C-alpha cells in the first residue's frame, strides 16, 4: 500500500477524533515546544551576549592588558584577590613598548576611567564615567558620532581639554541646545564639547550612554589615574586569528618586561570578550546539557501516551482490521498503517510544538531585548524526533494489529 495513502488515512483519523488526538500528542508537543523555545532563547541570549554585551563592552577582536580582570563572573577566592592586589600596575612605558614593538597590525589606546562630576551652566550630573583615551578608542569601541567629531591624536598629544560625550549626557545637560562647542566642566576643569556619540541603548537595563571621553593627556587625567599608570591598554586586531597572535606577543613582551621566569604565573591579565562571556557560557552549557534530558523525558512520556492511544485504537478498530485483512491487506500493510498513523500523530504533535515554540520565542523577543532567533536545526531535530517517537511508539500496537486473525477480528464489536 502506498505511503501517502497511509498518511492520508492517518490524518483523517486524527481530524475525526480531534480532541483525543490532541491529548495523545500533548507529550510530544510539550517536548518539541521546549526544544524549540529553549534553543532559540539560549541562542538569542548568545547573540545578545556576544554582540551587545562582550563586543560592546570590550570591542570586536579586542583585548585589554590589565592588572586584573574587572569583568567578574563567579566568586574570586580571597587568596586570588590578594594576589591581584599585589600585582604591579600597567604603565605608560608598557604601553609604549608594546605599541612600538608589536608585529601584528593593531590599533591601540591607553585607557583610564573614573566616575566624576560634570556641569554645564546651572545643570550638573554626578557619577558620570569619564574616560581618558587615545584617538583610536572610538574605532576600537565602534563609536559612531551623532554630531561633531572625535578628538585627534594631536589633541591627545597636546592634552587639549576637549570632550566627546555620550547621548544621555547630551540629552540631560544640553536639553534643547546643540552641545557642540559648548563648555563643559569636568570636576571643575573647563572642557569644550567637540562630539556626541550615537545612542548605544541599554544593556540589561543599564544605559550605555552615560559617559564622556577626553584625550588621555587632558587635564582631568590626574583625577582619573595615578601618574604613569593605566587602567587598561586596549589592543584591537583585524580578525580573531591576529587577535590571538597579538595576545601571544603581548604576553611574551610583558613577561620579559616583568622578568618572569618560565613556569612563573603572569602578574597581568589579558581581558577578552571571551573572558567576559565565561559566566554566560557556563549557564548556556548547563541549559544545553539539561535540555536533552528534559526533552527526552517529555518525548518518552509522549511516546508512552501515543503507544497507549494506539493500543486503544487497535482494540477499537479490530473490526476494521478484520475487514481490511479480509479484503487482502497483508501483515505489513496493517503494520504500516498503524506505524504511519502513530508517526503522523506524533509528527502533528511535533509540528504544533514547533509552532508553539516559535511563538514562545517571538513572545520572548517582544517582551525582552533578546533577539530570540529560531534555530533551523532545532526545527529539523523537532521533526525528526516527532517522527521517530511516533514510529517507536507505534510499532508494538501495529504489530499486534497486524497479527490479528481475520475471522476473530471480524467478529469483534
Amino acid at each position, binding site marked *: 500500500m*502506498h505511503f501517502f495513502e497511509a498518511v492520508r488515512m492517518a490524518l483523517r483519523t486524527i481530524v475525526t477524533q480531534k480532541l483525543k488526538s490532541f491529548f495523545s500528542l500533548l507529550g510530544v508537543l510539550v517536548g518539541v515546544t521546549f526544544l524549540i523555545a529553549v534553543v532559540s532563547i539560549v541562542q538569542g541570549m548568545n547573540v545578545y551576549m556576544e554582540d551587545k554585551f562582550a563586543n560592546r563592552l570590550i570591542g570586536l577582536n579586542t583585548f585589554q592588558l590589565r592588572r586584573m580582570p574587572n569583568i567578574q563572573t563567579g566568586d574570586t577566592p580571597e587568596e586570588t584577590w590578594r594576589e591581584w592586589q599585589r600585582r604591579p600596575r600597567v604603565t605608560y612605558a608598557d604601553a609604549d613598548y608594546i605599541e612600538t614593538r608589536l608585529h601584528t597590525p593593531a590599533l591601540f589606546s591607553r585607557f583610564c576611567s573614573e566616575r566624576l562630576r560634570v556641569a554645564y551652566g546651572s545643570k550638573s550630573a554626578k557619577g558620570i564615567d569619564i574616560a581618558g583615551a587615545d584617538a583610536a578608542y572610538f574605532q576600537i569601541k565602534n563609536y559612531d558620532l551623532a554630531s561633531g567629531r572625535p578628538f585627534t591624536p594631536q589633541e591627545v598629544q597636546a592634552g587639549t581639554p576637549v570632550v566627546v560625550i555620550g547621548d544621555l549626557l547630551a540629552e540631560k545637560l544640553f536639553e534643547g541646545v546643540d552641545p557642540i562647542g559648548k563648555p563643559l566642566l569636568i570636576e571643575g576643569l573647563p572642557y569644550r564639547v567637540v562630539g556626541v556619540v550615537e545612542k548605544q541603548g541599554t544593556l540589561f537595563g543599564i544605559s550605555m550612554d552615560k559617559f564622556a571621553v577626553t584625550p588621555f593627556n587632558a587635564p582631568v587625567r590626574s583625577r582619573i589615574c595615578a601618574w604613569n599608570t593605566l587602567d587598561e591598554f586596549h589592543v584591537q586586531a583585524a580578525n580573531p586569528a591576529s587577535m590571538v597572535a597579538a595576545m601571544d606577543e603581548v604576553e611574551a613582551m610583558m613577561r620579559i618586561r616583568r622578568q618572569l621566569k618560565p613556569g612563573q604565573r603572569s602578574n597581568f591579565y589579558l581581558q577578552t570578550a571571551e573572558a567576559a562571556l565565561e559566566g554566560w557560557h557556563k549557564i548556556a552549557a548547563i541549559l544545553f546539557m539539561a535540555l536533552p534530558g528534559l526533552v527526552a523525558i517529555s518525548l518518552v512520556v509522549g511516546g508512552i501516551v501515543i503507544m497507549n492511544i494506539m493500543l486503544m485504537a487497535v482494540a477499537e478498530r479490530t473490526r476494521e482490521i478484520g475487514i481490511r485483512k479480509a479484503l487482502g491487506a497483508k501483515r*505489513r500493510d496493517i503494520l504500516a498503517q498503524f506505524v504511519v498513523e502513530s508517526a503522523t500523530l506524533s509528527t502533528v504533535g511535533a509540528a504544533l510544538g514547533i509552532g508553539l515554540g516559535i511563538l514562545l520565542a517571538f513572545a520572548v523577543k517582544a517582551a525582552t531585548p533578546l533577539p530570540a532567533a529560531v534555530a533551523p536545526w532545532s526545527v529539523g531535530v523537532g521533526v525528526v524526533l516527532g517522527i521517530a517517537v511516533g514510529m517507536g511508539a507505534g510499532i508494538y500496537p501495529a504489530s499486534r494489529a497486524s497479527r490479528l486473525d481475520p475471522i476473530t477480528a471480524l467478529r469483534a464489536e
Partner: protein
Amino acid sequence: MSDLVIQIRELTREYVMGADRVHALRGVTLQIQRNEYVAIMGPSGSGKSTMMNILGCLDTPSAGEYWLNGQEVSRMVDDALARVRNREIGFVFQTFNLLPRATALENVELPLIYAGVSSKARRERAVSALQRVGLGDRIGHRPNELSGGQRQRVAIARALVNRPSILLADEPTGNLDSATSEEIMRVFGELHRQGQTVILVTHEADIAARANRVVVLRDGQLASDRLQPDRAAA
C-alpha cells in the same frame, strides 16, 4: 486449465474449546465449476459459515485439501492467503462489514489499494463496480447515509471490484427485509448471468431455489448435493 474452480477433499475443521473439540466440518469433499451458482443450506450450526470462511481463505482447514484455481490454498499461510483473498475472492458478509467512516467509493476502493492499483485506475474501477450494482449515484455516501440494501450492494461492488474468480456470500440477505432481499438476489442472479461464479449460504428455500445447485450440510457433513438444471436458465 479445466473449468474446475474449487476442489475440496476431506475438508475438516475442528475448534478446540478447552477440553472439548467441536467438529465444525467432518470431511467434506466437493467440486465447483466455473460459473456455477451454488446455494449452501443446512440448519444452524451445521458448518456453513466455517466452510465459507475456508473457501474465502479467511480460515484454514485442520485437515484435508482445498484447491482454488489449481493452487493448493490449504497449505498457504498468512500473506499468501491475503494475496489470494485480494485477487481471487470476493466476500459478502451478512453484516455488510463496510468501514463506517469511509464513503461508498472509498470502501469499494479498498481491495484495489491492497492490490497496488494506481489511484486513478482505482477510482475508475470502483465507480464502474458501483454502477454495476446500481449505485453510480451514491458513491460519495457513507454507510450510515445508505439503506440496508444499498449497503449490501456497496459490499457486493467491493467484492466484485478485483474481478474475483469466486463470489462468496454468507447469508447476504440475513439482515434485510424480504423486498430488499429480492433486490439483492436479483443482483446476484445478474452477476451469475454475466459469468460470475457465485456461492452463497442461505436457509431460505426460495433463495436457494434461484441457484443451479444446492448443497446441504448437516453436522459438518455433506447431506445432499443436487443440481437444479431447470433453474439454471431462469
